[in-house]
């Protein structure tokens, strides 16, 4: 199959100038084996003000997608070799997932339900009204933006946690369980003042001032779940 005639070159140009910027403009990745349809959709999105990028198969998208670029995927559900559902699974297991809006030729309800259950942003007919399609893309982009922010924060917090020494981590775990300094000292078999010093260093390294803030950070960084079960890390 010949590569799509639409925007890959344009997308590459943008990538050069915007790569350095932390938060580049979001892009809509179109994945469809029907190039004429994809080209029409790209034009419409471009005219609306989106930047779209075309891929004529799921494999092509997975191979050529710009690294860590914000955006969403608009994919045909029925494609040869790797169909839309398979693409979604592959994306979900990647370290940079993006939301998927599915397009389909026929409104096949069971397939749509399955797609939605696996986390698709929306499931629309190829002839769906423009507003509906744009709303779905917008929702997907918003979600992607939020998820990207969450992922960035988690990465940042995890970075801070990773600077802690083993002893500081042990102290933090005990603090999160709500133990007092005296109890911690007894448990760890060290002096209470040493506990206090470790605790102060930890708070400084993590950039927080209260136990409440520590609890919040631990959840956001994914160290503990909401029930404050300490991970085995």
């Amino acid at each position: 199959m010949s590569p799509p005639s639409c925007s890959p070159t344009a997308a590459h140009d943008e990538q050069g100038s915007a790569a350095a910027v932390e938060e580049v403009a979001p892009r809509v990745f179109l994945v469809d084996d029907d190039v004429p349809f994809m080209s029409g959709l790209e034009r419409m999105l471009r005219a609306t003000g989106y930047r779209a990028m075309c891929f004529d198969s799921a494999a092509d998208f997975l191979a050529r997608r710009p690294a860590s670029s914000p955006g969403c995927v608009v994919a045909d559900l029925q494609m040869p070799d790797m169909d839309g559902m398979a693409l979604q699974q592959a994306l979900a297991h990647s370290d940079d997932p993006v939301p998927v809006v599915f397009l389909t030729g026929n409104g096949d309800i069971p397939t749509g339900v399955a797609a939605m259950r696996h986390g698709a942003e929306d499931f629309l007919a190829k002839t769906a009204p423009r507003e509906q399609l744009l709303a779905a893309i917008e929702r997907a982009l918003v979600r992607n933006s939020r998820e990207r922010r969450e992922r960035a924060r988690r990465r940042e917090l995890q970075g801070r946690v990773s600077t802690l020494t083993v002893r500081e981590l042990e102290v933090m775990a005990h603090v999160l369980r709500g133990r007092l300094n005296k109890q911690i000292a007894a448990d760890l078999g060290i002096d209470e003042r040493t506990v206090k010093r470790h605790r102060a260093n930890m708070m400084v390294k993590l950039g927080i001032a209260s136990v409440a803030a520590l609890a919040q950070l631990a959840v956001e960084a994914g160290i503990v779940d909401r029930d404050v079960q300490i991970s085995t890390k």
Partner: protein
Amino acid sequence: MSWVTVGWSMIAAVCMSFAAVHALVWLHSRDKLANLLFAISAFAAGVLTVIEMVAMRAATPAAYSEALRWMHVAAAIIVIALVWFVRAYLQAGRLWLAWTIVGLRALVLVANFFVYPNGTFVEISALKMMPFLGETLSAPVGEQAPSRILIFIGHLLFLIYATDAAVQAWRRGARRQSVTVGGTIVVGLILGLVFSQLMVRGYLPAPLVGFVFLMLVVPMGWELSRDVIQAGALADRLRLSQQRMEMATRAGDLGLWEWDIVRDEVWANERARAWVGAAESERMSFESILQRIASEYREATREAVQRALSADADLEVEFRIDAPGDDARWIAAHGRVERRANGKPVRMRGISMDITARRRDEAELLAQRDSLAQLHRATSLGQLSNALAHELSQPLGAILRNSEAAQLFLKKERPDLEELRAINEDIMRDDRRASAVIDRMRALLKRRSLEMDAISLRDLVDGVAAMMRGELLARQAVLKVDVPSHLPYALGDRVHLQQVILNLLLNSLEAVGEFSSDRRTLTVRATACDDGWIEVAVSDLGPGFPPARISQVFDSFMTTKCEGTGLGLAISKTIVDSHGGRIWAENDPQGGATVRFTLRAVREGGGQ
């Protein structure tokens, strides 16, 4: 009036009458050669009788001699005609004897004209007055001519010839004819010899040939009247059997006809006349009947008749008659040609049947099959509808998005005309794409009869593959097409053949449904055979047909699937059959099944 005048005149008249009767018989049917020969000899006998009457009243020896000379001519004609009559009537007699007798008689005539004053005497020296039947008549006196020995030998040979022919006929079983003809000729010959000898010896005024011939004619006449009596009885029987036949034909609704080819006259019974709308008195010819046949069947009928006449084959033809004020009537005619011995056709006899009802049933059956095929097409279309909706939504979606884009571009201050032109072109292309999908759908739904055409199988299979694309995608199956583009064209109906390949592929797709993706591969292959056929094979890697039922898979409602009408293969078979091809199913040794069918290749225009 004298007894001689009365008697001889009567004999001459009887001979002439017989001659006339048999000449008429021959004139009516030219192949009755025996009657012609008998007529000739009877005529000659009549003439001879008259000459004889003149001779008996001759005043001078020269006059008698002259009369005798001409009597020899008449006698020669009688003998020669009778020789061939025996052969013709008894269908027997040795040819060399016949020719020898004829040769001897010719020699006698040579002597009669060129050597002696007549064939009997060297010279008639005087006339002797002799009382005969109360009258005084002239009898010749003179020296016998040596050529008389030829007459003796001739008569002797004729005796042998006639006896031999009679024996042959007797052995063959024609006993009555053998006795009558053989007997009378033997008796006549002996009497002729005796009488002519008596005349030469001066005991008779003339050889009394007329009298002898009368003895020959009477048994023949008896024979003839027997024939007439028999003909009468035959006519009665014929009438009876005709009545029976008429009853039978009426009961069987049969038309009887007979065509006299020589006179181009057609006789037909009441029923057959009614069919062609001919009145009782109307004279019918081949052409006049042909004109009543519906024009589109006229030439075919003419050709069928020509074929029967030229090839000694029976006539078998069906045609329609559109009688005014009557529904169209279908007639099947069966006829047999009768020929002369030389092979010339003289008559064609036959029966005709009204097959309108049968034709109607056939038409209904055909319509039923068509509507069944249509039902099935609609069903398979139902199966395909999702795929087709997908097919259609691609171009429609593209058109929609392109128009939206164009609208947005146009709102800009300086619209990019190049972009707009590209959009416009894409819209037009996608519109054509959508039309093509709709056309394919419509062609599948449309009810139609066979339209034979030279078809590129490559194009045909590609078309079906395009139709199947969505369905293949939905089931994640792969279709391999191995149809060489240099294959000869196939003769067939495009839509029906598309239906066959579609049915087979849908079947295969159904078969591989439960298998892993590496087995979800279908193959369409076409190869040209040496014998002017093209074989198309549709294969899959599914479970194959149940071996016990592989021969029945083309029967209607024979299905191994939970969904489907069980008509797919049956309809495919019907279609392939109607193309004159063959369709069969096989299980492949390495797993999976193949359905093959054959189509006639078209040489001209093919091979591109």
